[in-house]
């Protein structure tokens, strides 16, 4: 009798809730473990590197405030993307919508450059939202009218947006007194987000980001609109059966995610940056995709995952300074995190069972009792 063992992967019937929430933690732990070995093989002290990556940025007040500054755009964009992802609308181009929002918000700031007034900032925010929405309207139109995949169109438009921003700051929006540097004038005081805490860069947008996450949670959990979005994502035929318009919902999702990305862009240029420059984002629009999934597409989870991913930016910078790690380490960590999250999600949906596969006739071997 041979004793061969085979492993079998089979889908779970019910997905355990606990596992659903445990896997993001598992992914974080695996990322840290993998980071440990990467640092080790690169010849850095792994403990010291991890300390400066994950711990020391959190030990200072300024570090914590920077965490909020970086987390704010990630949370805002992540919440918007998650709403779309729930409906199976895959807006991958938040980076481009963010850039457009920065441009439109920035243009308003520069148009009223030498004026004062409390209306300038709200006007910029509206312009930023509209800019992001307008840019997301392109993939929305192409998807609803021509059935073009929004993943491709929104992603490709990102590069167009970045080049458009460069064109502006190298050309018409260049600071006339700026010694020919590719950057706009510094925004006037009325166009800058108020700083909440003296000595930090923590601006009004960080609080708004949290409020937006709460609003997103209310929308998705308690309203018929959120319900429609969830039904469309889980069972498109049931959505049609219930009379929910797929076209309207696709537009809505892209307008929400585009608008929030655009607003985040305006916050970036009117907050931490204070002017238009060729590169205004270290990839927030892409990182927010990881934020959305790590937060389980739940607006409140996204607050936590947004903070974690913000730490990867700050920790990466900190580790560069303190240990001399290369700049790419931030991207590596973000990539590892997404990789491990997707890998552990496999275990949520499937289980691996060991079984002995021994075909045999038991009649001869075991007499009847």
């Amino acid at each position: 009798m041979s004793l061969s063992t085979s492993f079998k992967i089979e889908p779970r019937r019910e997905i355990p809730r606990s596992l659903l929430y445990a896997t993001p933690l598992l992914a974080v732990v695996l990322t840290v473990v993998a980071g440990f070995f990467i640092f080790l093989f690169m010849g850095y002290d792994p403990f010291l590197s991890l300390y400066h990556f994950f711990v020391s940025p959190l030990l200072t007040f300024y570090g914590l405030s920077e965490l909020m500054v970086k987390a704010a755009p990630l949370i805002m964009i992540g919440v918007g993307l998650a709403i779309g992802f729930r409906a199976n609308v895959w807006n991958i181009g938040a980076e481009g919508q963010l850039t457009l929002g920065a441009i439109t918000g920035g243009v308003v700031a520069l148009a009223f450059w030498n004026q004062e007034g409390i209306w300038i900032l709200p006007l910029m925010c509206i312009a930023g939202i509209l800019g992001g929405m307008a840019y997301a309207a392109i993939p929305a139109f192409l998807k609803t009218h021509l059935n073009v995949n929004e993943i491709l169109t929104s992603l490709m438009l990102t590069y167009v947006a970045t080049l458009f921003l460069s064109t502006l700051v190298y050309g018409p929006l260049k600071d006339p007194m700026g010694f020919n540097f590719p950057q706009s004038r510094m925004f006037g005081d009325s166009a800058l987000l108020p700083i909440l805490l003296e000595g930090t860069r923590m601006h009004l947008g960080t609080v708004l980001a949290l409020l937006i996450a709460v609003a997103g949670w209310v929308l998705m959990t308690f309203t018929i609109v959120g319900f429609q979005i969830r039904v469309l994502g889980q069972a498109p035929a049931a959505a049609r059966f219930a009379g929910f318009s797929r076209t309207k919902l696709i537009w809505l999702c892209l307008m929400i995610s585009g608008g929030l990305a655009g607003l985040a862009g305006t916050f970036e240029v009117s907050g931490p940056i204070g002017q238009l420059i060729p590169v205004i984002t270290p990839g927030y629009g892409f990182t927010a995709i990881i934020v959305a999934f790590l937060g389980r597409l739940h607006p409140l989870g996204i607050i936590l995952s947004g903070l974690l991913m913000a730490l990867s930016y700050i920790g990466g910078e900190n580790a560069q300074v303190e240990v001399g790690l290369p700049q790419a380490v931030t991207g590596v960590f973000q990539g590892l995190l997404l990789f491990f999250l997707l890998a552990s999600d496999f275990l949520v949906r499937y289980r691996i069972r060991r079984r002995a596969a021994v075909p045999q006739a038991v009649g001869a071997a075991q007499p009847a009792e």
Partner: protein
Amino acid sequence: MTAEANAGVPRLEVRGVTKRFPGVLANDHVNFAVDPGEVHALLGENGAGKSTLVKMIYGVLHPDEGRLLWNGEAMDITDPHAARALGIGMVFQHFSLFEAMTVLENIALGMDEPGDMASLSRRVVEVSQAYGLPLDPDRNVYTLSVGERQRIEIVRCLLQNPKLLIMDEPTSVLTPQEVERLFETLRKLSAEGVSILYISHKLDEIKALCDRATILRGGRVVGECDPSVETAKSMAQMMIGEELKSVTRRSAGTHGEARLAVEGLTMPSEEIHGIDLKNVSFSVKAGEVFGIAGVAGNGQNELLLGLSGERLAHHDTIVRIDGEPVGRRDAGARRRLGICVVPEERNGHGAVPGMSLVENGVLSGHHRMDLLSNVFIRFGAAARFASEIVEAFDVRTPGIAASAGSLSGGNLQKFIVGREILQKPKVLIVSQPTWGVDAGAAATIHQALADLAAEGVAVVVVSQDLDELLAISDRLAVINVGVLSSAMVTKEASVEEIGLLMGGVHGLEPAPERAPEEAANVA
């Protein structure tokens, strides 16, 4: 054949087989035996444990207790591969065929050792001719009728020279004529010594075909009988364990204007091999139950989409509710005007499997049940609505927070039917109302439909189960390849006529003659 050497020994004996699932005892010390050449019926309601039992015989599941004896020898059937090696073949209720591939390719894919394609093709032709199962090996599956597709599955089993053939609800998708043809094949096999385990809850068929019947209820064997001496009613009572309720119809006022009127609905299908609707017209008055019969896949789904508003007609006047044109209005608008719909597919169409029963109540209920306050869902009211459905239709569920996907098919069907009925529709359109529900629940649903009609609702029932339509409808029409026949009064209609309309000649012709040189090769 070793039949004579083993004279008196059953081909298959199931001895004390028990199978538990979490919370359910699916089979409780089940005993029965199938002799060589016997056509043995396994009779029981949904959930009686028939499927679990045959899955153990076919090696898909493994018994917790008890044993299976094959020609008198205890066997451990580890998987379907081992079952086939013993000589057990199974034709499943739902076929596993690749539509874009040919008959031959599909047969080869399902076999353990298909051999080379040329000789397999010859064997397919031989077997299909020998057993009256005309099949052209080179046809693409998507061009075939359901009856023809079933033949592929049967031929695939026969090619492996089975000693025991398990048929799981084989006739649920066939026209009466196709059923008769299938029975001829099965009788021929039985005459050659092949044992047949025939699973069904259609009592007339079992009477016509089977030598013996084992009746299961709640996982236990509750009786064994000779179907030829029993009446359908007596077997049904054994199966259900209580007196059968028959639907009582109060005479409904079927006068007045049509509540639902469809005039010249023409609609190309969205599916690649779907059925286009061609000039479908009918009308249903208040208090009337209108049946639409037809073999699956003849445009029923398309018709349902066109009626519910999931797809729009070309003109507003093509569909009218109480005289009001709604042909261009979407599903939500039509629901608010009073059309409620139960689609054929439960999971993913009539319900969202991952959502709770409360949320699934909101899904179609929010148009008519006052479950919203502005954009906010009134979860309290939604929970009451869900509880009301669960109670009124005896939905077996751990609670209203359970996900729709965790309910058994029959219970989810009860929930969906209940959800639509409790919305007090003016027009109710139901597809396969009792598909997969047990006889007791089917009676409840039929009664609810009859009561609804008595209250003046126009009811449209689309069903493949002709007996069901004959029992509950006032008038009926037959849909075939997207064309709806003219309506007939049910009491005056003959089964033969309906059967011919359902099948026409479609799917009943023999396979085209092979080219002469190929025929020579066969010889």
